[in-house]
């Protein structure tokens, strides 16, 4: 199994899902998971976790003959600071190109050769500016690790690991299962067409089996990436059932919570607009926006401009325990995502007994029918629904009860069995 995030090195739900699935799967199959970075002194029970941090990188460029280098030296590369990625960047600060840097490929090759020879693999940020380089290195190290006959099947999670999966399939003829937690379509918006999109499309077409986290994402794979649903089997995420608890609010107002990265994909701006609408009507409510991301400055500024900074609170990134504490105080949870393949934190909120207002454009809708659903762009309805859940005790109780009825069926065990069934179709 090839993964990128693993607790505690998390950006979103990917690492949580990988860890949950791996633990449940290990009851059914032998399993090795390779991730760039693992916590120190941590080895899970019943399966093997391999971290690549510190492993020496192969010196791939050594073999270039001088004649090739000479030809390459005639090619000029021009680097421009352009944002083409759906991951966190700050598009509000366009960079002015003051000085164009020219490199010859020869210099670039030389640079790589030196770097390869002199340092071990290090991830740095999960999704840093050097992400592509890290993905290449991850791919090389994974391919180097595998010997023929060692594994029966490759299961790769999200695009960062797809290249390694493709390489293993090509070299050893191993069946390739792609697990799709999130697509460039979700992260970068429906119009995204960049290198990541290309890689995703290529890999999805080459894969033997695709496991998206929802029917919603299965349809995106069909409609946007042009892949037939024949080899697509949605496997919905599970949740580790933890004891729910409530925590008294220290303030008299009710509390409405947004939880997630502050990026366009997650729709925090719609949440803000709903909050503003309710506060301008004088609703006795506080709103918490928990998470970080490039939209934080814009949102904080809007809150300040509206003189609502004393009612709309930006908590920044919260540790998992703090997230649970916040949910334990919350009266309503809102997930206004523009495109959400699944939405694990909605399950977490439901589990904590918080009524949810969720975007229809999300996968979690398929497993949590009891929650309230709105279109992310329909701010008036979102505000009305929040208000109804705050004021209408009967409706509120009904939603909490309906949500909780879905939860027992959402353990990772069910997801693991679906995955094993899917493996069987490839191995027989």
């Amino acid at each position, binding site marked *: 199994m090839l993964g990128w995030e693993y607790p505690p090195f998390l950006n979103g739900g990917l690492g949580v899902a990988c860890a949950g699935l791996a633990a449940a799967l290990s009851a059914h199959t032998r399993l090795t998971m390779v991730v760039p970075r693992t916590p120190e002194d941590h080895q899970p029970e019943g399966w093997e976790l391999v971290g690549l941090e510190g492993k020496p990188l192969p010196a791939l460029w050594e073999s270039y003959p001088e004649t090739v280098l000479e030809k390459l030296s005639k090619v000029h590369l021009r680097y421009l600071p352009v944002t083409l990625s759906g991951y966190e960047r700050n598009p509000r600060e366009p960079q002015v190109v003051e000085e164009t840097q020219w490199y010859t490929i020869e210099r670039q090759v030389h640079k790589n050769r030196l770097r390869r020879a002199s340092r071990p693999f290090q991830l740095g940020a999960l999704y840093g500016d050097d992400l592509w380089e890290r993905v290449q290195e991850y791919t090389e190290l994974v391919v180097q690790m595998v010997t023929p006959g060692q594994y029966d099947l490759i299961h790769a999670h999200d695009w960062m690991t797809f290249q390694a999966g493709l390489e293993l399939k090509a070299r050893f003829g191993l069946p390739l299962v792609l697990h799709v937690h999130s697509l460039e379509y979700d992260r970068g918006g429906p119009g995204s067409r960049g290198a990541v999109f290309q890689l995703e499309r290529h890999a999805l077409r080459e894969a033997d089996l695709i496991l998206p986290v929802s029917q919603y994402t299965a349809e995106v794979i069909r409609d946007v990436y042009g892949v037939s649903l024949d080899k697509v089997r949605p496997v919905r995420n599970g949740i580790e059932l933890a004891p729910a608890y409530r925590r008294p609010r220290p303030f*008299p107002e009710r509390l409405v919570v947004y939880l997630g990265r502050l990026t366009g994909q997650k729709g925090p701006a719609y949440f803000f607009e709903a909050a503003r609408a309710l506060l301008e009507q004088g609703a006795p409510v506080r709103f918490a926006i928990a998470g970080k991301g490039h939209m*934080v*400055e814009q949102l904080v*500024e809007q809150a*300040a401009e509206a*003189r609502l900074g004393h009612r709309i609170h930006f908590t920044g990134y919260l540790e998992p325990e703090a997230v649970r504490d916040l949910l334990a*105080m919350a009266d309503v949870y809102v997930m206004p995502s523009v495109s959400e393949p699944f939405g694990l934190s909605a399950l977490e909120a439901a589990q904590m007994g918080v009524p949810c207002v969720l975007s229809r454009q999300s996968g979690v809708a398929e497993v949590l029918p009891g929650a309230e659903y709105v279109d992310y762009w329909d701010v008036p309805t979102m505000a009305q629904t929040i208000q109804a859940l705050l004021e209408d005790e009967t409706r509120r109780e009904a939603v909490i009860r309906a949500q909780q009825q879905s939860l027992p069926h959402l353990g990772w065990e069910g997801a693991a069995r679906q995955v094993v069934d899917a493996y069987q179709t490839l191995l027989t």
Partner: protein
Amino acid sequence: MPPVSLHFFGHQPYPLRAASIFDIGSGAPVVDRAASAARTEAQAAGCYRPGLELLERLIEAHGGRFQVAMTLTGPWMEQVTAHAPGLIRQVQRLAKTGQVSWLATPYHHSLSFVADRALFAAEMDRHEARLHGLTGQRPRLCVQPGYLYTNPMAYVLHQRGYVGCLVDGGPAFLKDRSPNWVYHGSHMPGLHLLVRDALHSDDLELRFGMDARAFSARLAARQGEVINLWLSLDWLGSHAHRAFLRDWVRDWLLHPEHSFVRPEDVIAAAGPGAPLDAPDYVSVRGPAHDLSPWLGNTLQKAFFDQLYELAAPVAGRKDLRAEWHALSDAQHLLAMGEPEGRGVSAYSHLMSLFADFHLRV
């Protein structure tokens, strides 16, 4: 050659406690008392005590030839009284020498002049009263946080009986005029303006590392009525700075015509001077030398507005007034102007505190 007028600005904002959404409704005081004590004790030991000792020794060593001006804000005096009372006696000994000029400033180091003239007057009164209690002297000049100044201030300050104000407005304000002359307010000849000699003050504050004799030579070459070297009192926290000051004062006074003077003496000796026009705020800070480092962005303006909306409700509440004033320190506004997310963090923190405070009001 002009005399030197040294001025030290002493301020230490009340440290605010950490706060997040989990604390709203806690009703806890906004000031972190423990941090206030710890910081004051550390600053007293490393900066204020040795710094004031040095000034005392210089006054002793050079008779009437070494004089200095000093501004101590309300939070400085309060925290020092509470956590380093020995310093108060040092301040009183300095006052007794008669060689120190004490300046008036808004008691809480706030921008109350910008927000509300009545609050401003109350803060100036309170500062004067406390300063008088401490030093037995009445200030004759005044200074605002960040050396802020604007035309309407001239009238207000003149009405209050001050003879001058310390200002700094950068090159756009001074145009091609020298800071080494004494100016006065636009249409206000009664209110003199002393201008910070940015070049030489920054030599000490930002580009420190000069030889004492070379510095004297640079100053001796100036023309005018005064060289205004204005520094933060914290500047005296460095051993190297104190050593430099000791050496340079001795070096400067080797020449019989060199002297140190207090701002009021500069004004008394000055010629008629020219007016300086400040239709907008000028200050020591930022590339534009204006109000923008404090109130340049939306976060700062929002916090400022929302805070001053509470001024009236808090006025009658003895239990809340001091805390409201602690929030009004101009230093907190500066923090919200910082780049790279630090301003946003500062705003989020302040608004959590403010929301908690708001509930108590």
